[in-house]
């Protein structure tokens, strides 16, 4: 049964990934400009442009183009970015680790801050603390992220000199040897504590700003989930047994309340990816978001589609994994 469940999920994932590639392909072909001319440059004559068009796989019927596109994808060829003059794949390899590190850090911060507040809100329901928590979390959800980023930089860097601006490491601090591409992790693994400190320092402001909207989500769902769980029978039993409120809350309620949080974890990754487009370009974090924002301004279709494809793939895979894990844990969900 488990095997069947896993297989079905994986097939579903594959189907969606193929559909994503079709969608991205269609979007890229809808483009009114001539990509071959744009890459060949102004000096090339018509013959050279036609030859390039052949090489780029832009000739032939749509189906032929799609087949070539897919085989290229499987080989890892995402096209050529004419704003950086490098293959898109290379650009993505350069910038993805930075965004991944930022997204994970923001996720971590949101969980760290959001979950406890949600619990407190639920346990002291309808108290001033609860109201304040709910209001402020909704506020966090409503603040435009780019506004927060700008003000955050003004206050954090300019006024208070608490944080640096731009880059993942300060001048003169060489990056650690690449193991994961996450500077914080890699420098820890290499024992370069000063580098790790520096990387963390650069990471803090962008990660914090990015986490805002997501903190609110976790507060709300944790609160709702805790409230739900706290009324269940097994909690009453635990209370009746004479266990202290603290143990009731921490040991029994929270564990069950966390389950809905896990299910939406994947969704938050999507929110964070969207947010990174904005935060990275304002705070100069050299990740995919900054790359994509520049590509958008340059109308660089290959780069934009490449980023779209990669992010959608990661997002879907993350959600599928969460689904899978959740399904493995709770048999009731396997029939969906």
């Amino acid at each position, binding site marked *: 049964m488990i095997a069947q469940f896993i297989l079905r999920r994986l097939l*579903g994932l594959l*189907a*969606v990934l193929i*559909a*994503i590639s079709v*969608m*991205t392909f269609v*979007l*890229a072909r*809808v*483009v*009114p400009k001539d990509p071959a001319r744009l890459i060949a440059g102004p000096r090339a004559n018509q013959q050279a442009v036609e030859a390039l068009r052949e090489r780029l796989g832009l000739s032939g019927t749509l189906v032929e183009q799609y087949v070539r596109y897919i085989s290229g994808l499987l080989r890892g060829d995402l096209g050529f970015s004419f704003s950086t003059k490098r293959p898109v794949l290379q650009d993505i390899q350069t910038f993805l680790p930075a965004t991944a590190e930022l997204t994970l850090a923001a996720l971590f911060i949101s969980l760290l801050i959001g979950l406890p507040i949600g619990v407190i809100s639920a346990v002291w329901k309808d108290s001033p603390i609860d109201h304040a928590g*709910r*209001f402020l979390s*909704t*506020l966090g*959800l*409503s*603040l*435009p*992220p*780019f*506004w927060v980023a*700008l*003000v955050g930089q*003004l206050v954090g860097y*300019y006024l208070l000199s608490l944080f640096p601006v731009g880059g993942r490491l300060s001048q003169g601090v060489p990056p650690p040897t690449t193991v994961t591409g996450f500077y914080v992790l890699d420098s820890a693994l290499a024992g370069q504590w000063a580098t790790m400190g520096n990387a963390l320092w650069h990471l803090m402001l962008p990660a914090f700003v990015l986490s805002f909207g997501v903190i609110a*989500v976790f507060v*709300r*769902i944790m609160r*709702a*989930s805790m409230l*739900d769980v706290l009324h269940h029978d097994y909690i009453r039993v635990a209370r009746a047994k004479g266990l202290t409120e603290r143990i009731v809350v921490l040991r029994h309620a929270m564990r069950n309340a966390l389950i*809905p949080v896990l299910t*939406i974890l994947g*969704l*938050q*990754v*999507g*929110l964070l*990816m*969207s*947010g990174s*487009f*904005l935060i990275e*370009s*304002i705070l100069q974090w050299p990740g995919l978001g900054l790359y*994509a*924002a520049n590509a*958008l*301004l340059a*109308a660089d*279709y290959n780069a*934009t589609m490449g*980023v*779209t494809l990669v*992010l*959608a793939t990661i*997002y*879907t895979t993350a959600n599928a994994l969460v689904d899978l894990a959740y399904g493995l844990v709770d048999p009731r969900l396997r029939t969906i």
Partner: protein
Amino acid sequence: MRRFVRQSRLNGPVLVLVALILLAAILGEALVPHPPRKQNLANRLQPPSAAHWFGTDDYGRDIFSRVISGARISIQVAIVVLSVAVSLGTLIGATAGLLGGWVDAALMRLTDLFLAFPALVLASAIGVALGSNLTNTMLALSMVYWPWYARLARGQVMALAQREFVLAARALGMHDIHILFRHMLRNILPILLVQISLDVGYVILYTSALSFLGLGAQRPEPEWGLMLNDSRKFVQTAPWTMFYPGLALTLTVLAFNLLGDGLRDYLDPRLRNQRVAG
């Protein structure tokens, strides 16, 4: 309505705020003290004063007038996007839920496809492909939101299909479509309403984000996100140019979020565990 207001201390003020925003959207541009697009170069970057409550921007335009006029754009986009998303999504989801079988599977795969893209990523890709203007923004955001309503509708329809009154209606010979429209929509409406109010805020935020990235509204439209984009460079020399559009945006999104929350608590406490974020 009265019960709603009494349910929580927030609900009354929130309703008032939403009403004010809608009022600004409908009447605003006609009633503002200065024409929102008129430049007055001798009057650039003036701080807030009696003549200009929110100050002027770098072309001498009155920011208060621009902020109020911007409400119309944001609300308009929200209405269009959500109308398309809700109708399209509900149609697809209800059909999937009712018909079941391979239709259901196919439509759900389609839904999954659109859900596979993070919102801004999809909207940007569409914006780049089709061109930067508000119409394409509305199209792009509709594509982002309809899958959620499809899922919602499908879930509701499938749950309701088991209920007695539906079985009874079927037994009496009513057609499925009839059942759908007569009974199911009425039951879906509350949760739909909640979701829509919550989504208005997000749609407005995403619209401004797209304008911020250069993809949405174009100058000289007084769209809030675009105003924020243009005022980035004045964050130190003229902070009011960034503050007031940001405030308007935040208050609007906040108002609709709180409205959605209040509606949810009012209409059905069991709904609290449904989808919270978008």
